[in-house]
């Protein structure tokens, strides 16, 4: 009887492995590919080198006035010297710690919820949902507990951007859930109301909504009722986002197998019980990527509030650009704003992609 002797594994021929193999398969697999690679490579390099030169090599970073910019590249002095204004707007300098605290607490509790295997998730989420909003309001707005009152028209910069985005998404979620449940309802009136509501908000541009909220709202309510301008922008944004959120929620609800509904019914759970204990907890988990994506869209859209005269990050940088002492640094200003937005959005979109993959594999089981 023969014995099976496996042949030795030979190393692969050089042309298929290592750097050469990589180059051959990834850049030069055919004549056409090679030409394209070369042309594109040239274009990329010829764009990238001057850009790096401008942004880093020849840039000036520190100083107090435009005289500090001598090297001919980017003048980041403009950014660094106004940095705190860009972040905090017109918030009083002595009170910056309140903003910092608020966002650190928010970030910490979100991180806590996102990282697996940390205990007390339930308590943290109860804190985040029910306690934190009040803490945040008291901290940011003040006027209570010996904190100085800082009215909302002094809020601005990146802080305002974050406030709008976070409040917008947090308020839109419950509304979106209701709308989505309504849209799946058997009752024709409720269903059609939700459908119309969702489609109308999704069909109109945000800036008309903002315009309406910012200058027309007082026309619709009795004369003696007044709202804060920021609050009105937030109401507009929330209604607008809730329509988008409703579609995300609907997707999540549809992903729950029918069997789950039936099992809950068969156990005798009532509609709201089975929704809140069985369906929504599962659906919310699947919705997180969608929620994050909505958040990114909202985050980017906050820049539109400049059209109604709120000083978010973009608006405040634009305002700074018209300062006669700093004329001519619009490129730096816009690059800075773009970078801030980009870092946040990119980070979040990566996170949502990561989640999506995780959920995907989780479901294959």
């Amino acid at each position, binding site marked *: 009887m023969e014995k099976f002797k496996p042949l030795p594994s030979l190393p692969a021929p050089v042309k298929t492995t290592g750097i050469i193999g990589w180059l051959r398969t990834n850049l030069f697999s055919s004549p056409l590919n090679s030409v394209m690679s070369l042309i594109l490579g040239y274009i990329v390099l010829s764009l990238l080198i001057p850009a790096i030169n401008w942004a880093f090599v020849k840039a000036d970073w520190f100083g107090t006035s435009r005289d500090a910019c001598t090297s001919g590249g980017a003048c980041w002095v403009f950014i660094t010297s106004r940095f705190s204004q860009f972040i905090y707007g017109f918030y009083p300098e002595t009170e910056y710690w309140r903003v910092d605290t608020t966002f650190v607490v928010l970030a910490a509790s979100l991180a806590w919820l996102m990282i697996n295997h940390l205990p007390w998730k339930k308590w943290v989420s109860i804190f985040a949902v029910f306690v934190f909003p009040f803490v945040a309001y008291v901290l940011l707005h003040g006027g209570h507990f010996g904190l100085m009152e800082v009215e909302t028209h002094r809020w601005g910069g990146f802080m305002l951007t974050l406030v709008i985005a976070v409040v917008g998404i947090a308020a839109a979620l419950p509304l979106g859930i209701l709308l989505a449940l309504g849209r799946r309802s058997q009752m024709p009136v409720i269903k059609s109301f939700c459908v119309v509501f969702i489609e109308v908000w999704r069909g109109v541009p945000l800036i008309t909504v903002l315009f309406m909220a910012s*200058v027309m709202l007082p*026309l619709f309510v009795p004369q003696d009722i*007044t709202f804060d*301008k920021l609050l009105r922008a937030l109401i507009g944004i929330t209604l607008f986002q809730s329509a988008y959120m409703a579609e995300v929620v609907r997707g999540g609800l549809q992903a729950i197998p029918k069997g789950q509904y039936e099992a809950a019914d068969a156990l005798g759970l009532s509609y709201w019980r089975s929704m809140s204990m069985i369906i929504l907890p599962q659906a919310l988990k699947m919705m997180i990527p969608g929620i994050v994506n909505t958040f990114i869209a909202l985050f980017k859209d906050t820049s539109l509030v400049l059209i109604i005269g709120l000083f978010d990050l973009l608006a405040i940088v634009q305002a700074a650009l*018209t*300062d006669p002492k700093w*004329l001519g640094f619009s490129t730096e200003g816009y690059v800075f704003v773009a970078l801030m937005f980009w870092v946040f959005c990119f980070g979040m979109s990566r996170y949502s992609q990561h989640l999506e993959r995780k959920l995907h594999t989780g479901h294959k089981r």
Partner: protein
Amino acid sequence: ATLDTVKERGYLQCGVSTGLPGFSNPDDKGNWQGLDVDVCRAVAAAALGDASKVKYVPLNAKERFTALQSGEIDMLSRNTTWTLTRDTTLGLNFTGVSYYDGQGFMVSKKLGVSSALELDGATVCIQAGTTTELNLADYFRQNNMTYQPVVFDTSDQTVQGFEAGRCDVLTSDQSQLYALRIKLADPSSAMVLPEVISKEPLGPSVRQGDDQWFNLVKWSLFAAVTAEEMGLTSANVDQMKNSDNPDVKRFTGAEGDFGKALGVNNDWAYQIVKQVGNYGEIFERNVGANTPLGIARGLNALWSKGGLQYAPPMR
């Protein structure tokens, strides 16, 4: 009524421009300054006794009337031209003229143009929703010239468009032209053409239907002018208060009860002068010869000095 609302609320909501040097502009601390802003402060001083009790609502030209109509603001003090249409169909009342202006043109010196009549075929940068837009159309039509309007939302963008070379001409009220010119990287590269193509009486406005509030805003402005006529300034008003001049006595509230008639404290006019200053002070502080804008009093001088500023008698 608006006055009661303002008193109850404790501050005045005043609509101002989103940023026009000399008229309304936040400094780098976020404090608002300018001639229009001082009008707001004068009204606050009269109504509440404290000129700092104002919340400024920055508005662009497109939003301003809606904001006033809707009650979003109590008064609008935002270089707004007084016209018949606005007084009637928009539901506003103008309370007076805080600045007499006229529309003009600013061009780049490189263009080599010296008169507006040479502007046939020009591209014109302009702000949306202003009387300027209408005047411009009329002026070019009347002189058989064509033009292309490039319409921006805010004055900032208008200047940027002009500076970038998007248009040959920037048109606006002359006061604004001076203000905008100093926003240019090189203000001396642009010049303002001599033609004034329209009357632009700028003034604060309030909603129709509240005569008490209308009177207060109207007379706050008149008080500032009257103070200048009487030679009262923020520096000397305390001292003059004790003079025997019955006009001054009535003005400062030591005699008579004008305040009651207006629904405010009797020293309302005193507070305006004390905290904000007379019209001349306001003018010189914000746009006068010693400011970057360097505008001469011109039409805005007192009537007694060849200008148009004329306050009805306070009695």
